[in-house]
């Protein structure tokens, strides 16, 4: 419904990103998120009935499934699923739906770098679309440190390959604190602090985009 594009200038460079919510008819919430050429679809089902073996008596069970573009999900997808699930669990108010299940399905359409951050953004937009109660929003930002020590935000696959270190952060909308980190390559403590600062700056742009895209969507329907 609401499609929007944003190009960021100034110090923090992000590729063009776009989002469309509620474009699938069957799921309770859906969203597509595009970072440059990286593209992900997300669908949420729930709160629905839960399998007895997975039932938790005081909160909802969240299941995250990541489907790669080709082939079956492997060990890498499992590790990404864990990151996305625990981030969503931290922001969702799961105790409001005890003994029920939430299923989040993420389909990768194309990976051109910063995939994990795109998955996180798509997840957040689809949870928002499903109208699930959340304590805060979150967004994903990927930073790469190239051979010269320069920090590149939202790198492409080619930039990721050339980088010395790669970090993905999930940042919450309340205090811009770090919810999740996942890193690759070695780096110093100072570089880590710099990357966190840059990601927090970039997250403001993403949250502004979230706000604008939701506002645009609802102002159209009214």
């Amino acid at each position: 419904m609401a499609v929007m594009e944003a190009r960021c200038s100034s110090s923090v460079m992000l590729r063009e990103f776009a989002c469309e919510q509620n474009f699938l008819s069957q799921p309770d919430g859906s969203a597509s998120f595009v970072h440059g050429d990286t593209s992900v679809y997300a669908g949420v089902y729930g709160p629905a009935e839960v399998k007895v073996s997975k039932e938790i008596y005081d909160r909802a069970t969240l299941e995250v499934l990541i489907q790669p573009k080709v082939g079956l999900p492997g060990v890498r997808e499992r590790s990404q699923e864990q990151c996305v699930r625990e981030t969503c669990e931290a922001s969702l108010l799961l105790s409001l739906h005890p003994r029920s299940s939430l299923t989040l399905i993420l389909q990768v359409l194309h990976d051109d770098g910063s995939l994990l951050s795109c998955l996180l953004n798509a997840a957040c937009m689809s949870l928002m679309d499903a109208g699930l109660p959340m304590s805060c929003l979150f967004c994903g930002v990927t930073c790469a440190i190239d051979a010269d020590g320069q920090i590149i935000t939202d790198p492409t696959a080619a930039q990721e390959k050339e980088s010395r270190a790669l970090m993905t952060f999930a940042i919450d909308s309340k205090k811009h604190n770090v919810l999740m980190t996942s890193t690759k390559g070695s780096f110093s403590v100072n570089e880590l602090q710099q990357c966190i600062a840059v990601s927090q700056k970039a997250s403001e742009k993403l949250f502004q985009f979230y706000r604008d895209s939701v506002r645009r969507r609802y102002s159209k329907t009214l």
Partner: protein
Amino acid sequence: MAAGFKTAEPLEYHRSFLKENCRPDGRELSEFRTTTLNIGSISTADGSALVKLGNTTVICGIKAELANPPVEGPGKGYIVPNVDLPPLCSSRFRPGPPGEQAQAASQFIADVIESSEVIQTEDLCIERGKLCWVLYCDLMCLDYDGNLLDACIVALLAALKNTQLPDVTISTETSAPEVNLEKRRGLHIHKHPVATSFCIFDDSVLIVDPTAEEESLATAQLAVVTDEEGRLCSLHKPGGTSLSGEKLQECISRATVRQREIQKLINKVLHSVKTDQ
């Protein structure tokens, strides 16, 4: 009375200890459980180590096989880590294909090997484009009482330091590899990565080396991997409640101290193994 309290209100039970800056097992907040290390525990493997962190027990065996080098890197070899969480180690694991935790742990170990460059895959090449070593690093948990990742990394590092690869020559006449089992040499270990795991309780209290019970009650977990130069090889926080910059700094300084302790321990055990022979 205390046992009943623990069963009925486990979170409240832990909180009452944390308020006094200690933990139910008598440890301080930033204190590790006793780490015991045994190197060369499996005589049939090319390298092995057994690590105990309190009750948590992980055994690592390294098996070397010959293979064709990968097409995308003809001058490289392979390292294949695999973490197994059998039903034996805890009631939370069921028989069958590896669960999410085991797969996520395997991926974490693979990422640490790649990021820290503990072994350069170029060292595993025997003849460019023709022959290389594959190191299968099998990590099996025998007793699960929390902090699996730290135990796995120590076991892996100690087993790699213990690994002795046989000498391989390619005969000029038949171009078949000839393995000389008598003549063995150790691997070149470039870096010594060590993981330190933390749990966050009630969004604020930071504890190190959590037990299984503490892990299940915590609101977030994170693992910091550092090498001997104080560089970070991995900062793995899969989610959970957020962490402030100062707390993160605290975690990193604790991790560098732990790295030194573990490296000293490994060297001491390796030394005692050598003098025994």
